[in-house]
């Protein structure tokens, strides 16, 4: 009898360890409900979804670089760069579509540049840190140079504004874009040959190389997607505020990193996916939401967020034991 109980507790213990992230999310939802009576109101939930979608899209990109066995600290700078380019080109050409196209190309180019550097250096996490730190500086400098350090206000076509502000049947378009991108990415990584190769090369590049997987190409793709996602995030962000600041991406890379890791994406590569992104981004959004509700100073908030990231890193390590 005691044996049966023991194994049952073991199972529960194991499940708890494997799903710490989900439990944290549930705890935060309960905390949110206790703190504010209209937490569960549709409006509040939809507002939350709208707010977290920019970070959500960023976290998709960051997670892709984690999965291929690296990470990308330059996506915040790419976000700034794409934001000022998008609004700036829209303003000068009068075409929002052209602005978006330029932003997407710039994001793609930035991501691909990181990817090529990772290929050249045959890099792992160490190289990724330095490479993306450097390219991030370049990105920030490009953004500052392009707009001379000043905010740019766009003309903003209605359909452009709708991306960040509009709803489809009370559901924010920004969140719909985020969710669609996550679904597409999840199908690619979990359900296609290409995705499987990507995960395998992130988990063990030697064994992947020996079965003929082009490990370097996978890195290129992972980092390019990260750049592209930063551009998409820039478009959503600028359409919400109808303006772009060269500083708008400051800290956005860390937000995405925290969300990705808190959600349960492993730092060693090959393990994780969009479910973890969803959980992580919601956790991060709720923490911000709760801290705001309780009136915690925004600078102090970073102490809490930093602590959460450190906790997540420790949990990742413990789970790998």
């Amino acid at each position, binding site marked *: 009898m005691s044996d049966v109980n023991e194994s049952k507790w073991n199972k529960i213990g194991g499940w708890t360890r494997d799903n710490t992230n989900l439990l944290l999310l549930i705890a935060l939802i309960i905390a949110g409900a206790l703190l504010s009576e209209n937490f569960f109101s549709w409006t509040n939930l939809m507002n939350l979804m709208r707010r977290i979608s920019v970070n959500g899209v960023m976290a998709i990109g960051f997670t892709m670089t984690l999965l291929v066995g690296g990470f990308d600290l330059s996506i915040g700078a790419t976000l700034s760069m794409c934001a000022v380019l998008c609004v700036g080109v829209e303003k000068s050409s009068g075409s929002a579509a052209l602005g978006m196209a330029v932003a997407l190309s710039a994001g793609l180019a930035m991501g691909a540049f990181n990817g090529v550097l990772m290929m050249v250096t045959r890099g792992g996490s160490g190289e990724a840190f330095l490479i993306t730190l450097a390219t991030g500086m370049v990105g920030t400098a490009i953004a500052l140079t392009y707009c001379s350090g000043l905010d740019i206000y766009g003309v903003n076509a209605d359909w452009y504004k709708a991306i960040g502000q509009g709803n489809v049947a009370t559901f924010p378009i920004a969140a719909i874009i985020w969710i669609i991108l996550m679904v597409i990415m999840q199908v690619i990584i979990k359900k296609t040959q290409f995705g499987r190769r990507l995960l395998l090369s992130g*988990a063990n590049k030697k064994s992947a190389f*020996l079965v003929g997987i082009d490990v370097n190409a996978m890195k290129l793709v992972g980092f390019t997607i990260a750049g592209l996602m930063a551009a998409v995030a820039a478009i959503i962000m600028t359409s919400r505020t109808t303006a772009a600041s060269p500083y708008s991406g400051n800290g956005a890379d860390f937000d995405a990193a925290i969300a990705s890791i808190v959600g349960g994406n492993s730092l060693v590569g090959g393990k994780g996916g969009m479910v973890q992104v969803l959980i992580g981004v919601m956790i991060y959004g709720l923490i911000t939401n709760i801290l705001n509700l309780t009136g915690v100073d925004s600078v102090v908030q970073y102490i809490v967020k930093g602590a959460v990231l450190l906790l997540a890193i420790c949990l990742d390590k413990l789970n790998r034991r």
Partner: protein
Amino acid sequence: MSGMFFEVRDISKSFPGVKALDSVSMSINRGEVRALVGENGAGKSTLMKVLNGNYKADSGALFIDGCEVCITDPTVAAHMGISIIFQELNLVNGLSIAENIFAGRLSEGGRPIRWREIRKKAKEYLDRIGFSIDPKIEVGKLSVAGKQMVEIAKALSYNAQLILMDEPSASLTQNELEKLFAIIRDLKQKGIAVIYISHRLEEIFSICDSVTVMRDGKIIGTSFVQDVTKDRLVEMMVGREINQAFPQREHHIQEEVLRVEDLMRKGGKAKISFNLHRGEVLGIAGLVGAGRTEAMRALYGVDYISGGTVFVNGKKLSSSSPHAAKEAKIAFLTEDRKDEGLTIDFSIKSNIVMANLKKIVGRLFLSNAKENAIADKYIQAIKIKTPSRTQKVLNLSGGNQQKVVVAKWFNTDSDIIIMDEPTRGIDVGAKFEIYEIINDLVSHGKAVIMISSELPEILGMSDRVLVMKSDAIVAELTGERISAVDIMNYAF
């Protein structure tokens, strides 16, 4: 049973899903060399790790000279005179021999390190095992045998009374093995007890006093070596009789499938040329370091080459890369299965299908059903012991991990299968199964290249043998000429 120096009583240890040790009891005298044998997954390594404090036993007790001791971690074990020499040696390659021997004890209480004294003491311990080398030399520059010597010196420096050796002979040449035996005899003279794990039973008869057989986490029996035969040991290990070490096969050598011309790896010392036929097992013999693995890595396109061509079925390989080689139906089972053969954190099934993802594509996406079906097919066909196909490969025993690698390459339907030390660190039963798999392959018209450091394996399995020495093929032996004497003559 008086005077027993070291004793374990009723040790049990469980891992999720496996009872690795099931009330194991054994004892050993001072100066006794005890062999510990058993199939992979029998619990030998787990027992060693419990003795050394790497694992904590679920129940049971350890006694030294009749007093119960509690070994909580390897440091405690070392101070109690228990040292372990793992198969994958625990040395820091970038540091000197002396630094490795005295790692963690270079100075006392934060005083400056007295290098001269450290080196002098290191030299003393090295001299005691007859290893004359400058302790300033970096460990990374030593051969595996040399590193083992350093490990033994390190054990002596802790005043070890019991030394556990986990497959010390796995990567030693015959010469180096003789030296190791001399050292073990010397340790025995000094009253030091040794527990010697090996899959090579011949060694046990030449060096050990007694032998303990384990199977499925239990001790099956202990006896003096003079009281048992090799066949009896094998029988105890597998729980059944094995009549012959190598399965018979019909020889049907057909047309040429692979031709290698003037292939030279980058930085290599010689070019190699050879061919391979369908239905043939080509053994590649030679000493460790003769360039056998390197030649195959060059052929498969893992390492860079400085020249040469590879033809498969008369067609030149498009480029020198694993991708091109795999497309040309070549499979490569590397020596290092953990690092190169497997994605250790992934499930058995995803490892099995990873080399041929095309097979699991459904109508649009990867099909879970197809993946499961392929995994189940191989788990049954080559008897991979696991509770589930979703088990992480990390949790399998060495032999079962090797079977997963075999399954992975089988799944590519390759015509040419290169196996680098396919039975290394694998127990007798699993070895026989691997040999049967090889025979089955060639009987279906496939061609096998087998690198092996075990001569009986080369002799028993090969249709033709290439002997390599400093990157060159120095002899090609066929039929009657395949003999241990000839091979060793060319290899040295």
